[in-house]
């Protein structure tokens, strides 16, 4: 098991890891395009939190997660030149029983997808179509804009509305 599979390493390290993973990936993507490096940075956040948390509840976990992310980022420059051998804790699959956790994760992912699909149904038609064209068909914003005869920022507004709607029903 390597550092490039951080979620698998997460259940023992940090049970809520799957919840924060997408947000952390996007956070770090603002700093680097290197996918491997992003995975390493996300993994570091989880390991640091696991190391410090020692049982007691954190008042605002989301705040704490991104505070940790910022400090991981600050340390990144040092790690770029001298890579610490102990920066990564090897993960023991046997002990952490990845199978059950994977099954739960797949189930949760499927449930959240189903919720999202149901929420899409209740969007106004044009907003839904724009969201589907972008998020699922991967059309460029400017192509969608010209197809509908609207501005790119209008397309963004439809996307924002769709995302807010999905979040409110998630």
């Amino acid at each position, binding site marked *: 098991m390597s550092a490039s599979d951080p979620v698998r390493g997460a259940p023992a390290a940090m049970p809520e890891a799957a919840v924060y993973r997408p947000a952390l990936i996007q956070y770090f993507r603002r700093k680097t395009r290197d996918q491997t490096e992003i995975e390493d940075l996300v993994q570091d956040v989880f390991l640091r939190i696991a190391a410090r948390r020692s049982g007691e509840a954190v008042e605002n976990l989301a705040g704490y997660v991104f505070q940790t992310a910022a400090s991981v980022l600050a340390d990144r420059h040092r790690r770029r030149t001298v890579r610490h051998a102990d920066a990564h804790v090897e993960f023991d699959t046997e002990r952490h029983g990845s199978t059950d956790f994977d099954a739960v994760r797949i189930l949760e992912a499927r449930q959240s*997808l189903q919720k999202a699909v149901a929420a899409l*149904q209740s969007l106004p*038609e044009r907003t839904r*179509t724009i969201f589907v064209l972008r998020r699922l068909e991967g059309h460029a*914003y400017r192509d969608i804009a010209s197809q509908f005869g609207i501005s790119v920022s209008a397309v963004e507004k439809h996307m*924002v509305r769709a995302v*807010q709607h999905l979040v409110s029903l998630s």
Partner: protein
Amino acid sequence: MIREILTLEQLERLGAPEAAALLRVRQDAGGDDHDDAVFDEWIADPANAEAWTRVCGVWASFDDAGDDAGLQDLREAAQEKPAPRQRWGFAIAASLAVVAATGGALMLNRPDDKGPAGGTLVADAGTVQTLTTAKGEHRSFALADASTVTLNTDSVVAVAYRPGGERRLRLLRGQAYFKVAPDKARPFVVAFEDRTVTALGTAFEVRAEGDAMRVVLVEGRVSVSRTGGAPVVMRAGQQLLAGPQGLTLSTADVGAVDDWQRGVVTFRNTTLKAAAAELNRYADQRLVVTDPRVARLTVSGVFRTDDTGRFARTVEAILPVRVAAKGDTLEIAAADTN
């Protein structure tokens, strides 16, 4: 491309949920360095970090969408959009039709109402229209080809007609009755998860029961299949239960299909437990039966689905039970206990 520049003040004015959505979308649209700088300040606030987590979670939920059946229809419909301006006009017209149908719901629901005269909803080529009913409602919709769909309580059906092709519908929740206008060239297909019912001209009901699909064939012929499986042809008067494992054919209670469209349910030596479960599909006021002795008592008769209290009063009069209202529930208990 002209792009609005974001400031921290602006994001704070929007509030965390909208700001998070906006930042995620702008990042998706090809972010810029200025956004990133504002983002760093913005996410330092724990409330914003929370909102960012939720937005990114929902966004990522489509990562593994793959061949999700529910999404497939939406994706196909989204791509069949030739004239957006017209589409928009159509969408407004369609939602007006739905409003009109809601307005006429009382009239529609009358037991003596002849057929689905009320909601007219044109399922245009290449669009997906969603038909829904709230708890306790049942409504009928006429489709563009003169087929009709009647939804029972708390149900959702998506209609995606393809231009000149299949008449495709998907049961997303609940129970629906389909009266299909004959058209040999355009199969009428109702899907539930990976199971489909295909009809040419017929009347049938499809109900979602957990992850199983129940089909009751009132008239004509349909074939039922699941992805990769052999089709089973049903005859009128039969019902078929299509679970995740396999298909079971049996004799149907065709009268029940008529019953719910008239707003009633028929019980024949039905246990109170089963009767309560059935009526609870229709109302927010729930019937609760906890005592196993009471649960085993049986009841027969025709009951209105829109009046749970009336059912409770009836069973109180004919069975050795007492009914107590507790908040949103009506508890049916043995008459001899406190």
